[in-house]
């Protein structure tokens, strides 16, 4: 079955929850090695607290969405999650008692969760606390999916999802092979006071640009860094990828960026090649990451990846 078919099944799953009832009620007692290398025994995975947008996304993709009793504020996909589930706040500012009060039987938390003392308390509590890696790579997505699938007892669905993710990455690699000269791309996280926050080395943005077959022009800096106008001119990107905030309905973010003098004089500014993307979709490195990379790539290289190829691969819900 090709990616599109699988995706249709997932879309159906998300919409109707049809396959949910097919999952076993609980994986009675699995022991997993989590992202932090700890061995954690999970007895009952019927009430899950999910911390991290990617973790929540995987749970829903595996059809275990109805077992999620609480999430953190980065869990913004599927969009209804934050409205329907209890929120324990921002993942880096958790409260021990708040997390416990949700009454989950297992906590699945991104390694990026904090503060460290709270995580320490939670690891010592009787509720199993499973850490999920927060690295930005294809392998990380696969290991995240397998870990979560094992815990919710949906290993068959997990393998299907893994297969799809790997197929999608394979398609991406094939596409990348067709690209002659890689585009020079710049990822813009935000514009503050006329200063542009760009994604340098070791960021999810860098990984995503590379997956989409572009060269990150800001890889001289590490992490997300503010750069002055002049530095943007010097970087001379052919294309700019910028994060659209979920609150941005009127294209304010785009106009703020395209009006910057430094941006206007770059090749990207002259050719008006500024691509606005959704943050979690593009940088979350959940199961939709390959689709996000493909969306970017289709916009980077319309001449190489024709509409027929894009149609074949389809596009994940954003």
């Amino acid at each position, binding site marked *: 079955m090709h990616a599109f078919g699988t995706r249709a099944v997932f879309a159906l799953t998300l919409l109707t929850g049809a396959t949910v009832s097919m999952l076993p009620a609980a994986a009675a007692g699995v022991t997993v090695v989590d992202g932090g290398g700890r061995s954690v025994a999970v007895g009952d995975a019927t009430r899950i607290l999910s911390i991290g947008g990617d973790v929540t996304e995987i749970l829903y993709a595996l059809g275990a969405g109805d077992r999620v009793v*609480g999430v953190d*504020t980065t869990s913004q996909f599927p969009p209804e999650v934050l409205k329907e589930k*209890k*929120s*324990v*706040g*921002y993942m*880096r*500012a*958790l*409260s*021990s*008692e*708040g*997390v*416990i*009060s*949700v009454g989950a039987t297992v906590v699945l938390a991104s390694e*990026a969760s*904090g*503060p*460290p*003392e*709270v*995580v*320490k*308390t939670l690891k*010592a*509590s*009787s509720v199993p606390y499973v850490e999920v890696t927060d690295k930005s790579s294809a392998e990380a997505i696969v290991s995240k999916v397998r870990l979560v699938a094992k815990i919710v007892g949906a290993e068959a669905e997990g393998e299907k999802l893994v297969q799809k993710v790997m197929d999608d990455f394979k398609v991406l690699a094939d596409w990348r092979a067709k690209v002659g000269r890689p585009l020079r791309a710049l990822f813009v*996280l935000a514009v503050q006071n006329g200063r542009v*926050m760009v994604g340098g080395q070791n*960021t999810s943005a860098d990984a995503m640009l590379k997956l989409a077959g572009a060269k990150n022009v800001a890889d001289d800096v*590490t*992490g*997300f*860094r*503010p750069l002055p106008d002049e530095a943007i001119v010097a970087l001379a990107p052919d294309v700019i990828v910028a994060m659209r905030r979920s609150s941005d309905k009127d294209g304010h973010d785009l106009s703020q960026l395209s009006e910057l003098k430094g941006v206007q004089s770059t090749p990207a500014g002259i050719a008006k090649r500024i691509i606005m993307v959704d943050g979690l979709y593009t940088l979350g490195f959940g199961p939709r990451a390959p689709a996000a990379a493909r969306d970017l790539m289709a916009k980077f290289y319309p001449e190489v990846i024709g509409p027929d190829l894009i149609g074949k691969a389809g596009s994940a819900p954003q």
Partner: protein
Amino acid sequence: MTAALRAQGRTGRDESSASARLLIGGAAIGLCVAIFLSLSIGATGITLASLPRVLSAMFTGRYEADVAREQLVLIDIRLPRMLLGMFVGASLAVAGAMMQGMFRNPLADPGLIGVSSGAALAAVATIALGNSLAAPWIKTFGAYALPMAAFVGGIATTMILVSIVSRQGQMAVSTLLLAGVALAALNGALMGLIAYSSDDRELRDLTLWMLGSLSGASWPKVFAIIPFALLVALVLPRLIRGLNGLLLGEAEAFHLGIDVERTKRAIVLVTSAAVGAAVAVSGILGFVGIVVPHLVRLLAGPDHRIVLPASALMGATLVLAADILARMLLRPAELPLGVVMAILGAPVFLHMVVKRGMAGG
């Protein structure tokens, strides 16, 4: 106590000592209520009613199904949090009162002797350089790397300041003030430099730490602050006479037979130890140190025999009350403590100041 102070104290003594007794009594009752609420309110809905069960399970070692959870919440989460909250509130309020007494300025706070900015700088460095320069430090102290760094940074900055200022054998308060401002500016600049070179996740951590929180409370932290709580409790009564003397001025205090230099040194030392430990536990909480001693002075006058204990009681109460709201308003999420405290306290304070002003006080 000297004749001058005795004479000063005698005018209107009945009125002031009655209001002082009332204030301390009221503050003590308030603190008891805050302690009770702080232990019985929380996101899980577990109350103190579960305490007997938890205690009997702890002594007998026999756990029923829910008791482990209740024990975790009551004994390992709320109790250390309450104790640390009390310590932080009392330390910051007393430290503020001592600074205002020493500098004879109602706006003085522990920031003036560098302890807050030093602690903040060290904490910021630990957060932002955790993967590079500060990695061995974090490896050694684990989850306690940040509080340890804050404490060491705070004390070290104060020590540097004192050694700069007291080169001629005495510590001039005006020099201390200016040098403190300079050192704080330097620390601020270094913090800015680190913040500039950190990524967005580190920046969010920095911001959250700066807003203060007790969410990282744990027993090891409680044990770690016990020496500082004891130090403050033991030294404080011995500083009262000196502080009251300094109210009149340094020369006057000297003529009253007070060893001014020793007193000032002791004040600086106790303040930096108390504030260093408090900042290490809770992050930066700027509001308590200025507002609480002010309120006390408004209500009961400037005598440090009243100001210090009443500030400790009210500071602890304020922090506990604010912390209850911080963890309940958005439960199961948590608001930053510093934010809640300022929102709660600033209007009350403003009201009291304005009311006093109108009354011609």
